[in-house]
Each structure stands twice: as C-alpha cells, then as structure tokens.
C-alpha cells in the first residue's frame, strides 16, 4: 500500500487512552483495539484474539504486548503475532498522532456528503 493512498481517520484524543490501557473503536462491523504502552506508543490491532476471538482491548498491557483476558495468550501489539508457543496473528493497522489526536490509516474511504 503506498503512502499516498492512505487517508487518516480521526479517532479521538491521545489522552482518551489511559497509559498501559486500551480503548475500542467500532469501524463499520469491525472492532479495533487501540493500546497505549508505558512509553506512550499507540498501536491498533483487530480486537479479536487469534485463539478464540477474545476481546484483546480488555487485556492487560505490558511491554509492547497485551495478554488476552480469556485464556492469557500474549499478543504483540506491533506485529499482531501471538508470542511464545502459541501460533496465530491478528491484523494490525497504521496509526498516526498529530496535534495530540489519534488517526487511523484507512484506504478507499468514500465519505458521503454529510
């Protein structure tokens, strides 16, 4: 995907996400978890554990990972990959922070005139 085709969709303020915490967004039918690490990086991954679909945004955030609340799989927020012996991957999405606001990278966005 080339940089030019990305549109940035504003999601909310940086401080809406607590440190070492997360928030969920709903985009059409998809649920995406936004996570903030100890060092204030924001990551976005699909809010659906590769194990049995647990809501990752309800997990505990540590390092650049989140531990799923249902059966404790540890998922990398950067790559979406399950860590350790577990195998599986969720989609991860580009995020940009500007003016203390959070933007999600989307493409082919056709907004109808309001």
């Amino acid at each position, binding site marked *: 995907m080339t940089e030019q085709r990305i549109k940035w969709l504003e999601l909310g303020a940086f401080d809406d996400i607590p*440190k070492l915490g997360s928030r969920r967004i709903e985009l*059409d039918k998809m649920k995406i978890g936004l996570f903030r690490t*100890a*060092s204030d990086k924001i990551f976005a991954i699909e809010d659906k554990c590769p194990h049995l679909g647990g809501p990752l945004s*309800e997990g505990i955030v540590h*390092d650049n990972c989140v531990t799923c609340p249902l059966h*404790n799989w540890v998922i990398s927020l950067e790559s979406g990959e399950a860590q350790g012996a577990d195998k599986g991957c969720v989609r991860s999405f580009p995020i940009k922070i500007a003016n203390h606001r959070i933007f999600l*990278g*989307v493409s*082919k966005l056709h907004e109808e005139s309001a």
Partner: protein
Amino acid sequence: MKKESLVIVGNGMAPGRMLEHLLDNNLSYDITIFNAEPRVNYNRLMLSPVLSGEKTYEDIITHDDDWYKKNDINLHKAEPIASISTENKTVTSKNGKVVSYDKLVIATGSSPIIIPLPGHQLDGVMTYRDLDDVDRMLTVAAASRASKEPLKAVVIGGGLLGLEAAAGLAEQGMQVTVLHLMDTLMEKQLDPSASWLLSEAFKHRDVAVLTNADTEKIVDRGDGAVSGVILKDGRKIPADIVVMAVGIRPSTTLAKDSGIEVERGIVVDDQMQTNILDVYALGECVQHRDTCYGLVAPLFEMAKTLADNLCGTESSYTGSVTATRLKVNGIDLYSAGDFNDGADRQEIVLRDASAGVYKRLVLKDNKLIGAVLYGEASDGPWFFDLLKKDADISEFRETLIFGQAYQGGAQLNPSEAVAALTDDSEICGCNGICKGTIVSAIESGHTTLDAVRAQTKASSSCGTCTGLVEQILTWKLGDEYEAAAITPVCGCTHYGHDEVRHLIRAKSLRTIPQVMQELEWKTSCGCAKCRPALNYYLVCEYPADYKDDYQSRFINERVHANIQKDGTYSIVPRMWGGQTSSKQLRAIADVVDKFRIPTVKVTGGQRIDMLGIQKEDLVPIWRDLGEAGFVSGHAYAKGLRTVKTCVGTDWCRFGTQDSTGLGVRIEKFMWGSWTPAKVKMAVSGCPRNCSEATCKDVGVICVDSGFEVHYAGAAGLDIKGTQVLGHANTEDEALEIIVAVVQMYREQGHYLERMYKWSSRVGHEEIKQQIMENKDKRKRYFDRFVASQKIAQVDPWTERVAGKDRHEFMPLTVVSPAKVTHLEVVR
C-alpha cells in the same frame, strides 16, 4: 552588483546558528534581523543556570552587539514583525518599518502554553521562556530571601522546563511545589522506573511533587495577585507565584496571517522552504515531516541545511532523533530514542538500587534504538552516537550496558538488595529478628538455614522470610552456601513472592515502579503475572495511602463484572447470606426484561447471576439495581465472595444458633475486602451442614455450646475438608477469630494462593497458635483488618453509576456504516 537581501524574523538560537554557517561560507547577503526581544542572541538553554544563580545573563550571550556590527548585520531589537506581504516581498514591523526581501526566513520560535484557567491573568502567574521571565522569578526570589518565611512557588507541569524551573526556584530558597497532571514526571521522555527515581530526587531537595494534579483555578488574594491554586480534587496549595510550564506551541500567527501554510507549525519541505517561494522557516516554529521539535539539536541541523541552501548548495534535512538531558545540579538523567519494548526488541536493564542507578537500553536487530539512563548518565552521548549511527553492537553486546569505559567483567550480585539493608531492618516479622542479628549468627559459625533458625528464631514461625534469610547467607558466604531454589514470581525477577513482600515492608516501598527499581526487576514494566501481584501486596501493606494501579488489574476487576467467552459480561449482585425478597426479585426481573438479558441463573454461591450483558449496558443496569438497594457481589474479586447460610434457628427444627444472622453479619462486616485469592465462607446451623461450610475457606458449624470455626477448605480444583481452628462461645468471638485468620492470610498469602494452600505452607499449628492461643496477636490482626475496611467498603457499582472510569464502558469512537459506505483498513 547589489547584494541580495535576506530578512530574518526572530533572533533565537536557530537563526543564530544559521548565521554562523552563512558567515563561514563567506556568502554575501544584506542581512536584516527583527527580534521581538529587546536584546542580542543568547543561549536559551542556559536560562536555568541563570535562574539557579550559577550563571549571569552576560555569561550566556552567544552573539553580542560587536559581533553584529563586525559582520555588518542589521539587528532591530524590540521590533516585532507585524505582517508579511509575500506578493510585494516585504515585511512590516509593529512600529511601521517596512523592509523588502529577496529571501525571508521565519524563525519565530514558540510560545509557552498558558492554560486559560480562572485566575491565569493574576499578578504572579508567569511562564518560563525568556530572560524577562527569569528576571521576574529572580525578583520574587530576592523578596523571598528578604522575608521571614520563604515565599511559595507552584510550578504547573512536571516536564523538562517545569522541573528546571522548580529546581532553580528551590535553589533560590523558595518553597516549591510541582503539580503534574500525569502519574509520573517527564512521562514523554522517561519510563516509569526512571520517573520514580526522579521524583524521589526532587523530594529529597524539598520540592513537593504532586502527580495526578489537575488544576482547577488560580486563586486571587483579593488585590489581583495570586494566593494559591485549587486542584480539581479539592486540594488547595498556597502560592506567591505560579509558573506555568505545561508545554510550548509553535509561534505561527504571523505566517498564517500572511497566507503561508500552517498546520501545527509552519509547514516546510526538506529544504526548509515553506509553500511560498523564497520564504523559509526554521526552528521551533516549524513542522517538518509532521514533527515539531522542542530541542535545539534538530534545529541546529535545520540551520545547517538552510544555510547550505541559501548558499546554493543543495542540501536536505530529513528529520532527527532527539535526546534529552535534565539540567538540574546533582540529577543525572538522559533519555534518547525509542524505549518501547516489544516482540522484535530486546532490552538490557541494569539496576543498582543502592547507588540509585537505573539504565535501560532497547535493542532491535542488534542495534541500539533507545536508552534511558538515570543516576549515572555519562555514557548518554556515547549511546546516542551508537543509536544515530545505527551501529551493529553484537560484538560487545554483553558489556554494552556498562558503557564505553567498561573494562573487565563486574558481576551483578543477586543479593545486592539484601546487602543494602541496614543492620536494624527487620527480616523476620513474627519473631522481630533484624538483619544484624542474623549476620552475627552467621559470623559466629551458624552457616546453614537450620543453624541460623535455631540460633536466632528467624524464619522459624510462618517461614515466609526463609528466602530472605537464605539471601543473607548467600551474601555472607558466597558460593559456600547452597540455597534451596526459590520459585520466582515470574520471569521478570529472581525474587519469590515472600521475598518481594518482605522487601516491600523492610524498605517501605510504595509504588510498583519503586518495587521494580529497588528489587532490580529485569523488565521495564513487568508482565500480566507480576503486576497484579505487586499491586495486591502494596494495597495490603498500605491500605490507606496506596493508589490502586488500575492497569494492573484483570478486566473483571476493572469493570466489576465477569467477562464471558463471547466478550459479554455477567453480574451477580450481593444477596446477604443468600437471602432475598420479593422486592429484590422484582427488581431483577425488571432489569432482565428491560435490558433483554438472555440468561438468569441461580449460582452455587446462593445468589442470582445475570449473563450475556453488553458492556455498554452495565452501568444503566447497575443504576436500576442500585435503586433497589443492590450492591456488587464481587463475583470477580480476589476478595470476599459469598457467605452461604442455612436457615438455622429461624425455621429449622435442628438449628442450634442463628446461622443466617451470623452469615449476614460476617458478610456485612467483611465485604469489599481484598485477599490474595478469592475467599468463600459459609455458616451452617448444625453439623448436618446444609450450607457446605466444611469445604469453604472459612466455615462455621453452629453447635449448642457456640460456634466451631473451620478454615482452609476447598471444593474446586482440589477438594479439601476444612480444619478446625477453634471454638467460640459467642458470635462476637467467632467473628473476631474469622476476621483475624483472614487478615493473617492476607498478610502472608502469595497472590492467587487460596487459603488452604497458604495454611499447608505455613502450618496449621502456627496459625492456630497465633489466632487461638495468642489473644493479643489475634486482636492486632483483627484491628488491622478493621482499619483497612474503612476505605474498602465502597460499592464499585454505585461509583461507576456516578461516573467513575466512564471511558471503560464505551468505545472511543463508532464510525457508523451510514457515514462510511466503503472502507478498507490499511494493513
């Protein structure tokens, strides 16, 4: 030929540097500078040493009047530019002076953000940006020294500038308080461990640091001067001056009004040119590749690029990585790059608790990508250099953290924390044995655990300090001593649960980052195993003052409901002692209908569970339930769950005591308490035991002569009949015994260790001795429980209905399908 004219707006550090480069290249422009400040160019970074009195203004001047004269540069001081005409290529100053340019450089820097709080215009409210600000502060500091009591300063903002201002004012003898909105200081540059060390250092120099401090207003003394601030949580802090250091905003008004493209800053390309030909921008006012900088190093790089381009040498600026160093005497702090950790990264952490040193390096693909150094930061620039050069460090990775001058292999000693304890630190709480006593026992030839135990009694009672005693043996005897293996809490530490608990007590550690620093945690912010455990140990140790670490709790404990396999929730309201009423049942029926709750079930704990609730519905459901008098049943808590009862003397023909009443009394006394793992109780009215009291954590069997108190049973993963703790003659006595044994368990249990496991580890005889035979001890356990209950019995559902943690119950954003017809998210 007439020289081209170069006009510069703003005479800060960035254009200062650019001029030096231009002059080095002998390029002949006709140069005119307009500056709003009434002075020559000075080193803004050095304002803090001027404030603290280490330097004077003269010391920090970079270009004096002679320099401008000698180089034929026309400097207009105190002459701000009011407008630019990019069409006519002229600038107009506030005083009406018009000058035309061939090339224009806008270098207006940035201005401090002033939060428009009520009272922000009062006399004594200041910012920290230029020499005038420093002069204002110094005037107050002089007045402070002249008055009997030192004057008080409040600094709003615990970032780089705020802390430098605070340190400077304290150095000048003022009484300083720093208010910081976030949990930790300099949260942008530091990880929590380093932040914690920093705030300790400030406390040691008598600067009060208040975190999570959100200012509501600045108070008027009555004559237009400031007298203090009031925080949103009601705290009042008196102040004679208030310094706002909450951040900076690029100064872009001039550019924007002149039709130059501005977003957060003035937008420039890699050649530092704005969207308008021949108009350049430079310094903190600039936005380059989406980034605005607030430190000089990148600005100096920009200055070099722009100078090259003005000389006709094609040159590009491609962005910078930045490094920060706090310039406060006696505090050594450095941070650079990206110090996130993650799957593809490794970290190297070095903690030397006794020396107050913390160093953390983050590596990726054998390259250094981030560094935080505290306490000993002399290697900062060396690390930064490796980082910028993308150097491969695999050759010297093992010794990297020891820095550039590392010679030979200094080995880290795992018992360092024990070594650092003073001789009078208590090691064995049960018997009151201090480190010094144990050390002398070892020195007089008691070189095994048993020998030390026999000689001193240390670790002979509950045994939870065994690991610590062994650490002391290891420290004294080295390899001679072979310690039994301790199971660490998790991969982040080599300490076990007992050692961690004891060291929290012995060193009076009060926050999670503090524990991680002092106990030399191997990771920067722990994991999902150790964080909840540490949080529990700290709550238990300091029930009144510890601020619960929300993000270290499992989701159920954050939202006060139980997560289900499909991401919905279940809730179980309390039904005291398993009793209910028509009013309660009606209220439950009503919410089930109103919110279309799919499943309602009677639980094994004698109450009602509602399952399949959407997260967004939780708070409205609790509102309705709360109106009917329900509170949370804590079905999710590591705490008191249920107290099951039977009908007892109220109805039953065999009942010997009021088992229902006692169950309700226990539940009302103990609800809300947190314990290492869940605690379930039951009271049966006779030995037929209809409430299954003999497989509970605590159970009571009522008999004619009183109450038999049982404990340490379970009927889950393991099935265990209870053991009898003792007999009580009265309900009051039974309650005291129950509460005391739970408190003993709270103070000794490992996180997630059920009561029966704790009792088999510590020993039934020991517990019985402490609770049944030593009445004073029992009373003290009881009193400690009662003290901690004062703040524990707040219904979490009511709090959330009132608005607490609202963010937890709703998505950040819902982008509706109506607004977005087709959309695909980029990978």
